[in-house]
């Protein structure tokens, strides 16, 4: 539509966020809210041409923009998306719209700052997905910590200070080491920070590759998060406001996995092959062990948080399925589908918990029971998300998991067998929670007073539900966009740099 579509997708929400911030204090809260919705909607609409105008037959970068930025450091303002990153830009713009709607009434404390933080973060996240210059990526990648830190710390629960510090410092730890790795690659690639130039470096010795891989691993594994560096996530999720949890689960976790795809795998293919068994092992631990941990949670948000870690384990598993020097196509595409699907499902789950929390002010499973009697419409929606979370066929949750398991079987039967346990554990913890919260007799007077969803909540739930079902019934629509880009990635990873 526009020649600089990606720039618009990045900067429109940020500018909207600044405008929202400028509305100032709480007396103009409604203006701030409407402005935020307008900004988020414009951001989403601007991102749509990326999907419709995308050339499926081109595995390379599209919508590219290159401008000089900091020439003295070899840094360019270089944007572009392929079939992988394009999906996440849209997913992010979509989630931001949902989040703004979700926080409409719930956030009464400084709504302008709340909405502005989300809009600015949305722009930064789009930037991280669209950046093709390593430092530009880093700027967006790190920059998004600032709004997220404030979101958790200002609008979060009782232990918000602890959670926000943990979130910030954990993620900073990883990314700082990555920065050193990026600077090292800058000198190797002939004084440029262009990611494609990084990928084209012909020779990197294996021991260097492994060190660099560790640096990238620390940065991205913390973000994903992979076991054992996942401990920040339950804290951050539990303390974050509903919108914060939605964005965290739906988007920011994906940046970690995306980082592996964009940096670690193509730049360091030999190290990735060499260390893939560790990645697989850690992923399987996340899938099985964290799945069991989720089973014993008494806090709904914590339960969904652990389930996110377990689902992301599936993603990292899919990304590191090597047969010889080749990545498995099914597994990689499955991982990507799983990432997008998890974006919708986890946003839906967290929103459902938020809806209940707003009424009862508790996240404990034990404080609920028989919600279906009072909130039938809500219960139906939550049923759908719970089913999707446990991977029921015809929901988006199934498509991704199925593809990853299919890929894993081709690589190693036992990987697939262990990974498939998630279908049991996932169903167990999700549906058991659903049963205890929604079904049965009305358990106490708080539940007695619960009113069913209002129009705004209905809108958010319905849109998310359509996305979950749509993707489950017709995953091909997404897969065909990413197909050639994935082929490209696999071909790239198959080359050795030794």
């Amino acid at each position, binding site marked *: 539509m526009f020649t600089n579509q990606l720039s618009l997708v990045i900067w429109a929400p940020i500018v909207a966020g600044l405008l929202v911030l400028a509305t100032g204090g709480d007396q103009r809260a409604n203006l701030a809210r409407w402005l935020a919705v307008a900004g988020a909607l414009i951001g989403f609409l601007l991102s749509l041409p990326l999907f419709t105008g995308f050339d499926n037959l081109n595995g390379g970068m599209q919508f590219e923009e290159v401008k000089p930025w900091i020439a003295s450091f070899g840094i360019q303002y270089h944007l572009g998306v392929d079939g992988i990153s394009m999906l996440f830009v849209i997913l992010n713009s979509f989630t931001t719209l949902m989040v703004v709607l979700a926080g409409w009434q719930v956030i009464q404390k400084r709504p302008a700052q709340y909405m502005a933080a989300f809009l600015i973060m949305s722009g930064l996240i789009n930037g991280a997905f669209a950046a093709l210059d390593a430092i530009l990526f880093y*700027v967006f990648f*790190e*920059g998004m910590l600032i709004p997220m830190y404030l979101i958790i710390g200002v609008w979060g629960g009782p232990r918000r200070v602890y959670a926000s*510090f943990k979130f910030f*410092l954990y993620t900073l730890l990883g990314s*700082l080491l990555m920065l*050193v790795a990026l600077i090292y690659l800058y000198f190797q690639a002939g004084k440029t920070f262009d990611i494609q130039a990084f990928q084209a470096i012909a020779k990197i010795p294996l021991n260097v590759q492994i060190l660099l891989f560790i640096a990238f691993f620390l940065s991205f594994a913390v973000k994903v998060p992979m076991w054992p560096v996942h401990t920040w996530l339950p804290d951050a999720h539990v303390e974050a406001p509903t919108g914060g949890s939605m964005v965290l689960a739906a988007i920011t976790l994906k940046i970690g996995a995306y980082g592996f795809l964009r940096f670690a795998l193509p730049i360091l293919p030999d190290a990735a092959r060499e260390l893939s068994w560790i990645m697989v092992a850690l992923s399987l631990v996340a899938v099985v062990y964290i799945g069991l941990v989720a089973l014993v949670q008494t806090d709904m948000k914590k339960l969904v948080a652990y389930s996110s870690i377990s689902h992301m384990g599936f993603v990292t598993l899919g990304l590191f399925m090597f047969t010889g020097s080749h990545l498995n196509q099914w597994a990689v595409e499955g991982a990507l589908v799983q990432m997008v699907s998890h974006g919708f499902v986890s946003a839906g789950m967290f929103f459902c918990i938020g809806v209940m929390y707003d009424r009862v002010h508790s996240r404990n499973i034990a404080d609920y029971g028989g919600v279906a009697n009072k909130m039938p419409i809500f219960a139906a929606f939550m049923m759908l998300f719970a089913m999707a979370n446990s991977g029921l066929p015809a929901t988006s949750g199934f498509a991704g998991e199925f593809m990853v398991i299919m890929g894993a079987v081709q690589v190693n039967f036992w990987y697939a067998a262990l990974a498939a346990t998630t279908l049991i554990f996932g169903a167990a913890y999700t549906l058991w929670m659903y049963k205890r919260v929604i079904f049965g007799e009305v358990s106490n007077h708080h539940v007695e007073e619960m009113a069913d969803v209002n129009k705004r909540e209905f809108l958010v739930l319905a849109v998310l539900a359509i996305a979950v079902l749509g993707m489950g019934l017709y995953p091909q629509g997404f897969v065909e966009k990413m197909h050639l880009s994935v082929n490209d990635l696999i071909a790239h990873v198959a080359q050795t740099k030794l």
Partner: protein
Amino acid sequence: MNWADLNLMPALPELFMSVAILVILMLDAFISDAKRGLHYGLALLTLAGCAVLQVQSYSAVPVHTFSGMFVSDALSSLVKLAMYGSTAMVLVYSRQYIADRGLLRGEFFSLALFALLGMNIMVSASHFLSLYMGLELLSLSLYSLIALQRDEVKATEAAMKYFVLGALASGLLLYGISMIYGATGTLDLALVAKAIKLHTANDMLLVFGLVFIVAGLCFKLGTVPFHMWVPDVYQGSATAVTLMVGAAPKLAAFVFVLRILVQGMEAMVADWQAMLALVAVLSMAIGNITAIAQTNIKRMLAYSTISHMGFLLLGLLAGTPDGYAAALFYSLIYVLMSMVSFGILLGLSRAGFECETLDDLKGLNSRNSWYALLMLLTMFSMAGVPPLAGFYAKFAVIKAIVDIHLYWLAIIAVMMSLIGAFYYLRVVKNIYFDEAQDTSAIVMRADMKLVLSINAVALLVLGMLPERVIELCVQAMKQSLTVI
């Protein structure tokens, strides 16, 4: 020396400043206390005049004068302009604060300008004698500025400590210089450099001299293990004076170090590189870790300064033009950041109340969200989080040391900035997450509000478009260092 050959042009801004200071001093005797605002205006006018003269007298190649004792080059011009700017900002930020505390006197302005004159001489010196003269003019002015609050026990203590330790450091420096003189037979930086390069000097004596000089320089920069004075001076001085000690003098001290170590003794890079690496690591570690334990924000910023100076040394010790440019860029950004942080403290203080503990910042967001945002930008910039200017400062320095393959140093540096992030985050936490304890209205003069806003927003703008300033630093280094 032949008077007819004396070229005064390169030193025109300094001459103008000296005259202006004398005028301000004289006026002081003739006007009543009520009209002290006049001094404020005159001081600002002086700075503006200096800046204009500085730009006018700029020449594309370095010009030496006063028998080679004084040089005007791109580096000195750039740094001097930055110092005029920062001194002007200090005056704007301090105006109300010093008026509330009875410090709005002629001495304040003349001492501040004398300090600036000293810095100018340090920055433009190309001879050990003029270097030392500038340094002493700066130091003596600062000692007296701190002691200006003579009824304040803490301020007098700070002045005393600074004076005694400063004198010791000057002694070390002089001792080192005398050894260099003994070895090379000259005090002219260019000739010293030549003598070292040609190995005509006694190496043993040179290395000994270097050790003393580095010790003296580290003291002036406030790096570990010569950092003890920094927290006490920062905390004890009136906040306006702290800002004066903490901002522009760091720039001057950096150029001072650059002139001696790079222009004078670059051939001994292997020797001073190792010393500075140790000092840098210790400064980053002790500065950042100790800052965590502070409850007084001035003291916390003092430790943060120590760690920033450690970071700055990393660029210097890289020993490459890129590294020097990175360190120069770092020092410019550092000055911008410290201006805002102390500026906010000055703005939050009022008659009878000093904003100096971390608790005093609590709930600033609910009291005034604009100042809260400015402080947020500054803290994240100090922590080196993009897209703020502080990130590129750290980035440039780390890039310079990765370039010379000192990977371990780069990793230590980033780990230390991780530790540092904690206490900057705590300031943001107090501002945004906590409830206000003190809900009194914040009153700032309009000019201060404007300058402070521009100052802080500049951190964000430079964070997004840093190219111009970086390029300026690179060019300045290129022009100033190639000639020697």
